[in-house]
Structure formats: C-alpha cells, structure tokens
C-alpha cells in the first residue's frame, strides 16, 4: 500500500521503457523507507527544488572517502530518508566478479541499507544507495572482514582506479590494464582513502586507443595503450575482406544489408590522416602519419593488428562539465613503457610529478586540467620535463605579446640592464 500519493512520478511508469519508479515501489514492499524516496521526489517535482542536502561529517573510522553523506531537508515528513548515505565500493579490475560475490554484496546491502544500488557509478565503483549513520561501521566491518571488499574513493581523494577488460578479453590491449589498475590501487591506498588533493583525481586505463573506459574524456590521468612501430598487416586477410570472405568490423551491425565491403570507401577514405593507400592489391600504411584512431583495425580485425613495440600514451586533464564545460585530456607523453616487472615505475614517476606540482599550484576545487588551462600548457610541460613540439600548438598565435621565461633570457630577469647594454648593441 503506497505511503504517499505520487501522481507525477506515476507518469514515469506509463511509457514503454523500464521505470525506476516501478523498481523503487517493488523495493518498498520489503524496505518501507523506499516509500519516502518516492514521497520526497514527488515533492521535489511539485516544488521544482531538490530536498537532498549533501555533505557532512560521515564516514568510517580512519577513512576520509567512500561514504557520501546524504540527508533529507524535510526529515520529519520523510523519516525513512532522514539519512540516506551513499556507499562506494572499490570494484575489481575490469569489473570481473562472480555472481556469488554480487549476491553477497546485495545481501549485505539488504541487511544494512535500502537494497538499492547503482551499478556502476561513472568512476566504476559499485554504488550502494541509502543507509543510516549507525549502520556504517557494522556494514564496513562485514564488508572488509567477511567479503574482503574495500571502499572506493570520494571527495578530494584519488578516486577508485578503473580499467578496460584489457588482455583478459581483448587482443588489441597493448599492456596489462588490470595489472596496472590493481598495482596503482594497492600502491595508492592512502590517497584513495584519505583526502590528499585540491579536488578529485582520477586514473583510468585503456588497453588501446579505442579507449573503452573513456579515459581520454573522464580521467585526470589517462593511460591509453599504443604502439610505436608499424601496424601489422596480413595482406592475405586484406584480400579476404575485399573478396567478402570475412564480415567487416567483426560482424558488428550485421542486421542490415550494407552491400559488399568497399575497402576504399569504408577504410582508406575514412583514415583521418589519409595515411593509407592500395598499391595494386596490397594495402600500404604510412605509419609515421598514423594517429592511432583504430578505425582500420576495427574494420578489418583479421587483417590489421597493433604493432609489437607496445606501451601507453599518457594524457592529462580531462573532466566532466562542472566548471568551464567538459574537457578532453591533453596528450602529454606519446609513448611510455608500461612495465610490470619494475612495478610500473615509469608510470608512477609521471603521476607523482603531476601531484607534486598540482598540490602546490592547484586552487581549491580545481581539477588538474583546469590548473593546466589557467597556467598554460607550456608551464605544465616544463613540469613534466616534456619538450614542446609543434603538435602541442592548437592554433597560430593571435596574441601579439611574447612571453619569455627567465631562463630563456640571457642573464635572466635579474640582470643589470644598463650593464648589459654597455656590452651589447642597442
């Protein structure tokens, strides 16, 4: 029996699509506090204002992240959601878990929370929605001791690292994304669990430039697999595609008749740098011009594969649109060894260079990408000890002023100009 009338929310059940309202009503049959979620949301729809307060002193002992305080600003009207905290669990690398593990997590959440989940949050965590402050410590104890699962990151912490399926499922992965994700998660436990930075910081790892975890768009530090030699070509398989022996794009989009495969139209002319051509019946690639868009490899996976000298590109500074709009990450290091045998020390060295600089220069609530925008890319590249190349220049200069660094000027900015001019032509 509904606790509140919800005519506006009920409208959301009338369409042909699945409705979260129906789901919450079903959950409310066993968890009555869920009626108050619907009641409060109905009120928000009517008044066109949120009734959630967020933030507070809430968490488990020793941790400064993983629990997000959520409170109702109308607790007397909706006591079931007076506290309704979110819990973030650190997902396993590539989100591989058994159904038994998921069942255990759901059972634990039925015991200590609302039973509602958000699988997965955009950082990748398993997100458990709605519990009370007294339930937090017992939940955390059972989570860590019985389920051997830890909380993820929130607030100004390192957020839970996330990676694609990597070498576990994907032949294009240029490094072991799961190994790097797991290593960084363990190496930076302190940064995940305790606030360290001016604002959030995210790592994401994709095995190839297809970038299945959207590292280039979502992470402050993106590690995207790449290669620095030539794309491997199986010319017999190229002929096979041309002759229609193999379906293009691995058989994806096969529900419609797209006509015979046309390598010129579907691959060569779509290459963004025009670095592909046919010489007779052989496919040629000018690899120096390849920007790793992956289109040709995706279209003809039997014929083309990433090169064998593999590693990763490091891109820095992506973020979602809160301030200044969404921003993609900037390619900072085109190629880096990703070496498990030395505990990924090359990757860690780059991370710590960024952190040491950003913690000092970044303003409160400023993502590293915004700091780079504010101080300028040349300053950031000098911090990263990267030489500036023409590809770093977005567009020709329109500002008539020339800015020099002190070290670029003979004698620096502190020189005695009069003394200098005595010795140099004016």
């Amino acid at each position: 029996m509904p606790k509140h009338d919800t005519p506006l929310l009920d409208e959301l059940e009338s369409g042909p699509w699945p409705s979260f309202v129906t789901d919450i009503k079903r959950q409310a049959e066993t968890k009555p506090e869920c009626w108050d979620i619907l009641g409060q949301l109905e009120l928000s729809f009517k008044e066109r204002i949120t009734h959630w307060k967020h933030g507070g002193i809430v968490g488990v002992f020793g941790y400064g992240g993983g629990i997000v305080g959520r409170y109702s600003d109308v607790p007397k009207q909706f006591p079931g959601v007076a506290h309704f905290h979110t819990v973030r669990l650190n997902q396993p690398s590539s989100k591989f878990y058994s159904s038994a593990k998921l069942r255990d997590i759901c059972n634990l959440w039925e015991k200590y929370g609302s039973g509602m989940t958000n699988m997965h949050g955009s950082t990748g965590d398993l997100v458990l929605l709605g519990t009370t402050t007294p339930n937090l410590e017992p939940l955390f104890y059972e989570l860590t001791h019985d389920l051997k699962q830890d909380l993820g990151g929130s607030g100004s912490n390192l957020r839970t690292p996330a990676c694609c399926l990597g070498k576990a499922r994907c032949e294009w992965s240029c490094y072991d994304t799961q190994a790097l994700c797991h290593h960084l998660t363990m190496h930076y436990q302190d940064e995940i669990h305790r606030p360290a930075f001016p604002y959030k910081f995210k790592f994401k790892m994709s095995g190839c430039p297809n970038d299945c975890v959207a590292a280039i768009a979502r992470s402050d530090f993106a590690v995207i697999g790449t290669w620095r030699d030539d794309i491997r070509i199986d010319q017999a398989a190229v002929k096979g595609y041309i002759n229609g022996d193999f379906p293009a794009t691995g058989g994806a989009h096969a529900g419609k008749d797209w006509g015979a495969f046309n390598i010129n139209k579907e691959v060569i002319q779509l290459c963004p740098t025009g670095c592909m051509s046919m010489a007779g019946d052989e496919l040629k690639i000018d690899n120096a011009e390849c920007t790793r868009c992956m289109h040709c490899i995706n279209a003809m996976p039997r014929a083309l594969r990433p090169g064998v000298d593999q590693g990763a590109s490091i891109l820095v500074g992506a973020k979602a649109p809160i301030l200044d709009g969404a921003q993609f990450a900037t390619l900072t290091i085109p190629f880096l060894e990703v070496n498990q045998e030395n505990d990924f020390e090359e990757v860690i060295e780059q991370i710590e260079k960024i952190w040491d600089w950003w913690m000092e220069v970044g303003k409160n609530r400023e993502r590293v990408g915004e700091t780079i925008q504010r101080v300028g890319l040349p300053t950031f590249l000098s911090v990263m000890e990267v030489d500036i190349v023409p590809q770093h220049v977005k567009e020709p200069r329109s500002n008539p002023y020339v800015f020099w660094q002190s070290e670029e000027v003979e004698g620096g900015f502190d020189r005695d100009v009069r003394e200098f001019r005595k010795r140099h032509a004016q």
Partner: protein
Amino acid sequence: MALSVDELKAAIMDKAMTAKKPQLYIKDFYACDPDTKPRAIKNVANDLVKEGKMTFWSSGSTTMYAAVGRAKDEETRDAAEDSK
C-alpha cells in the same frame, strides 16, 4: 627550516581552532609551514584525524578538515533544532 612533526601538528590545530570557518581545505594548512611539502602536510593532517583531534567533512566531491567539535554533523544540528 621545516617544522618538526609535533610543531606542525600544533600549528595545524591552531589554524583549525582559530580560523573563521570551521572547515578548511588542505591547502589552507600549507601556510602553517611553507618549508614543508604539501604531501607531508597532508600526512600530518591525516594523522590528526587518526588521533581523533580533527575530522573530515565531505560534500561527496570535495573533502575538508575540521577540528573536532567545530564543525557540526547533521544529526547534532537536527537535534539542536528539535530542542529549540
């Protein structure tokens, strides 16, 4: 010369107790000792949380530090309003 850990803890607590706002960003504590690296200051501030002298206040996207007792949690605030 950088402060010792104990001196830095005292400086951070002093700042946390006397600042106008009860909650402070980690960067606000950097001024406690300009000769100490930000990561070292963060570690000392986190030690103070473990010792129960400071607490975290988090909005979910940002986390701040507060001396225990200076920042009110929602339950205490609601209870205070109820008792009025």
